[in-house]
């Protein structure tokens, strides 16, 4: 309506903080954008403090709207020219070049300050090129500076921005406004400079005033009650309706906003990624070079000639890459992967584009398109203008080398990490709002601890009242509203786990760069969604522990065989490996080692590589919430017919027997079964990705279900599909990733099956990683007939190693907690041929300090010359050291120094001492000792349970190694108990858990009476009565050392 009224003025808002000006702006960029459109504004500038972080989101919201988005930023300088007031102003980007200038200035200010802050001086503004930016000056108030200082400041700006300077006037209806307007008019007159209206906007709507007040109080580290004049006097800093603006500002001032808006032609969508040209040798085109590299790789991959089908695939892919001009992207990734290869760093690509024939030839992935029939439709989508997606995993211990290579190759000017926007989550929001409202922090913590986060129906308001945080019910309501509004607000920018942005020119002209918390790391101001929405590319350099372990295991196997051994040398589709996995024997194997996966393996019975792809993807919230697991298993084992309503659905679901498992399939189904258009399906995909933070899936439900009913699908299937979509939200697991992971599952399982000692040795040397502790891995190793030997100064190195022709696993000195790495290395390097003969010799030869010596004694790592750990300790407590320089070996140095008063350690004491020093023991399991002492008379061992009938009451006991309450299992707690024969799975229902919280939550040694349940080879104990037997651990020996 407003726009139609001819008397209504037009207006462009040029001063607007979004919530990317942290603790200041009280609205999201998209909220501001949408409201500006509703209000009929001509243009909207987002001008966050020394930042353009809010721009991509505002741009995405305004893409299809008549409102023009202007990119700008607000600055307050640290100092001022002589005699002038401190300048505060807004710079607006007039063109792409001006945008680059703005980014450069922001980068200068940000790089100079600590993370999250900026520092700019007036000299910076003088020395930076800013001739394509417009400047809006915010003159100081009467209280801040006198007239002369204000005028001097204006003159300085006028010199720098002649004909590009405006004085900004606001009408916030606060006390003293007349004086300020008078000053603005006077200055305009003196400087002959136009005045423009602006709203000093902090929120999109007046309703956000309370939240803005809360943010202000937090910014000043105070409570609302004490914030006083730090708060704004009213809530006028919002996007006000045009009639209001018309009443407040002279027409000329409003018209100036339009002139400025018109002058600003820069549009964020015009940003294009400019690839580094370095990678293409001179004289070659990118496309030609990529083609050449691909064909070279092809000859290596297929020495006997490329299969026809793969040749066709390569041709098709290269065409598509050329068409979309993505050559540089593939070349960049190839370059990084080639570097890793040359350094012997294992890596593996994944993602839609990674599992392509081209990537296989380039060595980016090991997934061979000839062996696996995969769906490459999402390889690169021609319809969507969206960059391809390749994540590359590297060995976790050596990823830093790759990152340093990227910095070195492209320089810090041209490479930086993408940001991750850290947002308010329920805990932090409750904490901060509570702080601002002046609630007692201890009570807030108590409230937080009391909230069951999974229980969505929790009545927060009642809890707030119950905990006496406030007596005032209206405050409780406010609290609730504020917390809900604050959820999802950005708090700060952190670094992305590994997403690099690399550019041809200085990165700072494309996106501002700022400091990360980590030393020597810089991040750009945009996160991966922002980059995606603007069509910019990033390269994901991620860390994966399993790759370290695999590389180490391959090296050990090569050592044993006497020839280097590579992943390619591992035979494919080995039946023995699948047989092992089918038994659920998968501790340590990549991805399928969790309890849920161990239970799934015997049910799914993987027989082929593709079964592993499904295995990896099926134990996830999506398929579980969609109740797709059981139908799949029934069909896989032929208990239910496989049928399809039509051919379109068949094409989507054939590989998974008619049951949707992967995210891609669900989206495809929305198209073929519910009639979504390609665009709608893409929206659905985005909503799923964003669902956890701020997305909303409900709009799709109606459409999905009616669409499917219309096309003759049954309502139950439609509802389940929707549930699955919700389950995917935030945890989407696409087939392309599963395919890459499944490869590592197979490789690690094969090593475990055929070279168990190398497998466990490599895993232990890559700790910390995976689900299991070294103690659990060592026990599993011994169950697989691997002989494990204790750490010993006369045999061990720092790392764990394999000894002798029988490949016994010798624990390394690294297992001794707290031992210095340098000391351990010297023990190894300086070891005499015949080994150390006494503690004194060890100390002297290896230059060990007292701390290391004590740790070695505590670990009983000197069995060669000490009778037990007590005596070892007594020996090295002798502080008198011989004068090092002229030390002569005397026979006394090799005399054991025996103290008859010290007791002999008992087996129990040794077990506990082992745990204290190494976190594991090679002696008998504590449970075996307790059983022998008669403490566990009616308890069955894990081994005995396997041969026990289902349905009968049993008793078990064990060390608690895990307590889990998965989100997908309603209220059930899974407890894992460890005894001397293996693990026992205990299932505790919500009611049982509630009644027996104390033993469930606190016991370290738990006794369970329950009923045995069995499904195939999987055995559970459904818990009835729980009792805490932790005190028995102390009764093992007479020893008060804490058992952990």
């Amino acid at each position, binding site marked *: 309506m407003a726009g139609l009224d001819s008397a209504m003025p037009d207006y462009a808002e040029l001063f607007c903080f979004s919530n990317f000006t942290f603790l200041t702006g009280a609205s999201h960029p998209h909220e501001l954008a949408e409201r500006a459109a509703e209000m009929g504004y001509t243009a909207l500038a987002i001008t966050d403090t020394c930042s353009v972080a809010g721009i991509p989101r505002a741009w995405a919201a305004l893409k299809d709207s008549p409102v023009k988005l202007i990119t700008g930023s607000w600055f307050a300088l640290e100092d001022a020219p002589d005699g002038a007031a401190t300048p505060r102003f807004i710079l607006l980007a007039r063109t792409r070049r001006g945008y680059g200038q703005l980014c450069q200035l922001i980068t200068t200010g940000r790089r100079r300050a600590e993370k999250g802050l900026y520092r700019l001086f007036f000299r910076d503004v003088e020395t930076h090129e800013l001739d394509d930016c417009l400047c809006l000056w915010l003159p100081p108030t009467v*209280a801040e500076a006198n007239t002369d200082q204000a005028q001097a400041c204006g003159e300085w700006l006028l010199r720098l921005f002649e004909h590009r300077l405006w004085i900004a006037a606001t009408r916030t*209806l606060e*006390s*003293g*406004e*007349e004086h300020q307007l008078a000053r603005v008019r006077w200055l305009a007159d003196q400087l002959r400079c136009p005045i423009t209206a602006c709203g000093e906007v902090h929120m999109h709507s007046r309703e956000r*005033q*309370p939240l803005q*007040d809360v943010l202000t109080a937090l910014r000043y580290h105070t409570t*609302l*009650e*004490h*914030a*006083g*004049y730090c*708060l704004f*006097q*009213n809530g*006028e800093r919002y996007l006000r309706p045009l009639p209001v603006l018309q009443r407040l500002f002279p027409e000329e001032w409003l018209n100036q906003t339009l002139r400025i808006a018109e002058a600003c032609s820069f549009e964020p969508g015009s940003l294009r990624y400019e690839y580094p040209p370095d990678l293409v040798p001179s004289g070659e085109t990118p496309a030609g070079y990529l083609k050449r590299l691909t064909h070279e790789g092809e000859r290596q991959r297929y020495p006997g000639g490329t299969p026809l089908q793969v040749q066709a695939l390569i041709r098709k892919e290269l065409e598509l890459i050329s068409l979309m001009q993505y050559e540089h992207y593939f070349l960049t990734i190839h370059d990084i992967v080639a570097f890793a290869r040359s350094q012997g760093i294992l890596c593996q690509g994944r993602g839609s584009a990674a599992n392509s024939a081209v990537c296989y030839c380039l060595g980016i992935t090991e997934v061979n398109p000839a062996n696996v029939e995969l769906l490459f439709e999402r390889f690169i989508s021609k319809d969507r203008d969206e960059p391809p997606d390749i994540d590359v995993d590297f060995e976790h211990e050596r990823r830093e080398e790759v990152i340093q290579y990227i910095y070195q190759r492209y320089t810090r000017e041209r490479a930086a990490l993408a940001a991750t926007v850290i947002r308010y989550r329920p805990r932090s929001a409750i904490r901060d709002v509570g702080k601002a*409202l*002046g609630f*007692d*922090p*201890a*009570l807030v*913590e*108590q409230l937080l*601890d*009391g909230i069951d986060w999974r229980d969505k129906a929790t009545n927060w308001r009642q809890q707030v009242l119950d905990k*006496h945080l406030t007596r*005032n019910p*209206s*405050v409780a309501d*406010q609290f609730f509203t504020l917390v809900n509004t604050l959820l999802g607000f950005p708090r700060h920018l952190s670094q992305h786990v590994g997403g690099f942005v690399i550019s041809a020119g200085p990165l700072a002209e494309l996106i501002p760069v700022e400091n990360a918390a980590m030393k020597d790391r810089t991040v750009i101001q945009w996160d991966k969604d922002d980059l995606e929405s603007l069509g910019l590319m990033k390269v994901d350099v991620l860390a994966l522990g399993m790759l370290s372990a695999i590389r180490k295991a391959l090296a050990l196997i090569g050592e044993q065989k006497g020839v280097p051994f590579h992943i390619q040398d591992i035979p494919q589709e080995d039946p023995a490996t699948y047989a092992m996995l089918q038994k659920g024997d998968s501790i340590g194997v990549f991805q399928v080692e969790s309890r849920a996966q161990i239970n799934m393996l015997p049910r799914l019975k993987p027989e082929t590589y593709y079964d592993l792809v499904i295995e990896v993807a099926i134990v996830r919230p999506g398929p579980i919430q969609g109740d797709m697991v059981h139908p799949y298993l029934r069909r896989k084992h032929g208990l239910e017919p496989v049928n399809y309503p039509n051919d379109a659905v068949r094409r989507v679901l054939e590989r998974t027997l008619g049951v949707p498992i992967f995210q891609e399939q669900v989206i495809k189904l929305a198209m073929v079964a519910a009639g979504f258009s390609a665009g709608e399906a893409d929206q659905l995909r985005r909503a799923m990705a964003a669902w956890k933070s701020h997305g909303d899936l409900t709009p799709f439900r109606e459409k999905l279900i009616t669409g499917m009913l219309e096309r003759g699908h049954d309502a139950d299937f439609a509802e389940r599909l929707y549930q699955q979509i919700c389950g995917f939200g935030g945890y989407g697991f696409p087939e392309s990733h599963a395919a890459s992971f499944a490869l590592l599952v197979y490789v690690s399982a094969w090593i475990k099956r055929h070279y168990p000692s190398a497998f466990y040795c490599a895993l232990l040397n890559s700790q910390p990683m995976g689900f299991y502790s070294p103690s659990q891995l060592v026990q599993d190793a011994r169950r697989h007939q691997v002989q494990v030997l204790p750490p010993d100064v006369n045999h061990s190195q720092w790392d764990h190693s394999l000894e002798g022709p029988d490949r016994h696993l010798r624990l390394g000195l690294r297992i001794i907690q707290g031992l210095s790495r340098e000391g351990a290395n010297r023990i190894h390097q300086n070891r005499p041929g015949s080994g150390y003969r006494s503690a004194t010799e060890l100390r002297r030869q290896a230059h060990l300090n007292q701390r290391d010596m*004590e740790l070695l*004694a505590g670990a009983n790592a000197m069995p060669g010359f000490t009778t037990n*750990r*007590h005596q070892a*300790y*007594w020996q090295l*407590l*002798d*502080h*008198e050291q011989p004068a090092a320089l002229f030390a002569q070996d005397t026979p006394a140095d090799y005399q054991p120094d025996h*103290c008859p*008063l*010290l*007791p*002999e*350690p008992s087996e129990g*004491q040794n077990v506990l*001492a082992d745990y204290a020093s190494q976190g594991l023991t090679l002696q008998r399991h504590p449970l075996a000792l307790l059983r022998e002492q008669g403490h566990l008379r009616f308890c069955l061992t894990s081994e005995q349970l396997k041969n026990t009938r289902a349905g009968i009451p049993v008793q078990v006991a064990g060390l608690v190694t895990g307590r889990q309450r998965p989100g997908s299992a309603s209220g059930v707690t899974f407890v894992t108990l460890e005894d001397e024969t293996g693990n026992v799975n205990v299932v505790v229902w919500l009611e049982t858990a509630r009644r027996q*919280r*104390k033993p469930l*939550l*606190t016991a370290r040694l738990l006794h369970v009476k329950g009923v045995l349940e069995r499904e195939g080879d999987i055995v559970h104990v459904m818990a009835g009565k729980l009792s805490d037997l932790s005190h028995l651990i102390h009764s093992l020996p*007479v*020893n*008060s*050392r804490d058992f952990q």
Partner: protein
Amino acid sequence: MLWLYLHFPHLLLDHIRRDRQDQRPLVIVEGTGQHVLQACPEARNRGVQTGMRLKTAVTLAPELGIVRAQPEQDARILEDQARWLYRYAAHITLVSPDGLLAEIGSLQKLYGGLPAVWQTVEQALDEHRLTAWAATGHTPLAARLIARAGKGECTGDRGHILRTLETMSLATAEFDAKTCTRLQRLGLNTLGEVFALPAPELARRLSPEILAHIQKIRGTRPDPQAPWQPPHSFRQQADFVQEIEHSQGLLFPLQRMLSELEDDLCWRQQDTDSLHLILQHRHEEDTRLRIRTSGPEHRADGFLNLIRLRLEQQPLRAPVVALVLSVKRFIGREAPAGQDLLGKSQDLNEAWHTLISRLQARLGDHALKRLSPQEDHRPERAWSASEVQSKHKPRLTNPEHLPRRPLWLLQGPQPLTEPPTAWFSGPERISGGWWDGERVHRDYYIAQLRSGQLAWVFRDVREGWFIHGWFG
């Protein structure tokens, strides 16, 4: 010499519980609120343990009361205990945070034997509703270790005490963590086993300090203790987990505090004529009351009646979270009270207090206020009339930065009944105060009324016009 050691396993809990009528489970948490430091028996029954994460504790006992520990508070409460123990024993040492040591060898004769001393102390503990683990020892450390291990007995037999020590585990011997680990690594588990090692070896292989510690425990090395001196003033504090909303609820804890005061005064052989009572509130300034008796007084009843009257006169401003009773002025019992309160001997400060006190007595507390500016956008809250005795210093704002306000602000807005003849400035919009339930949303103007007066008028959201003040 014979020493008595009292170990208070949960002193802060006892302190809080004795001023509480209900017995909900209660825990003390460390400053950051993450871990449980002390748990009362009710809480322990539900599985709450010391060192447990608060989160776990709340899961075990959802109705748990939580108190945050403050080190200064611990020290103060321990001193309270020393004060009453001082009545029985002259040589006392405070062992912070939770122990008292008293030399009792010299008392045996006075009380007629060790058991009588023991009984007297136990009775006193009972009266004060305190949990303490007591033990005797021939050295201060022996008494302390045995008490803390909960193995205390009433015995003066050195051999018996040593035998008790020998069976005690290393963890209870208060070696530092490093030493403890070292001794354990040697396979030693009891103090007796450590006693058995040759002294020179101990000093050489472990450290001379460890040897000294052991010798102090056994009594072969002196361990002098500096005696504690009681303070010159009286101060008692009660802390409440649940706020007290009515003055009636203050009388229960007051009764106890006043009877301690009476004991204290009796012991000092002195009287007083003025009590300070501070009521602490969660969000507001403290209420400070000064109670003056008509003459020197020491009886709890007398004080209680006066305070009751005073509290009846003056309802609580806000719920009370803590109550402090202090006396700084003591009057010798035989000396007559000063005749003229404003006499030369009184300093000016005293004169001021006396004047205020007299004015308050004559006019009532509410009649006396002190004015100060307050940072708040709402005009009616931009100033405050606070308690005269409050020590709060208001933040000073540069007057130039203050908003433009009339000198004469009306008690409350009055409806504007006539259209003004002229408008001078405005609107100035004030909107805020949503957080305390007194939200305002108004547009203010300066307007001239028919009478020629310059009025500060506003229109509020409900479309009404009001006069809020007058410009000169």
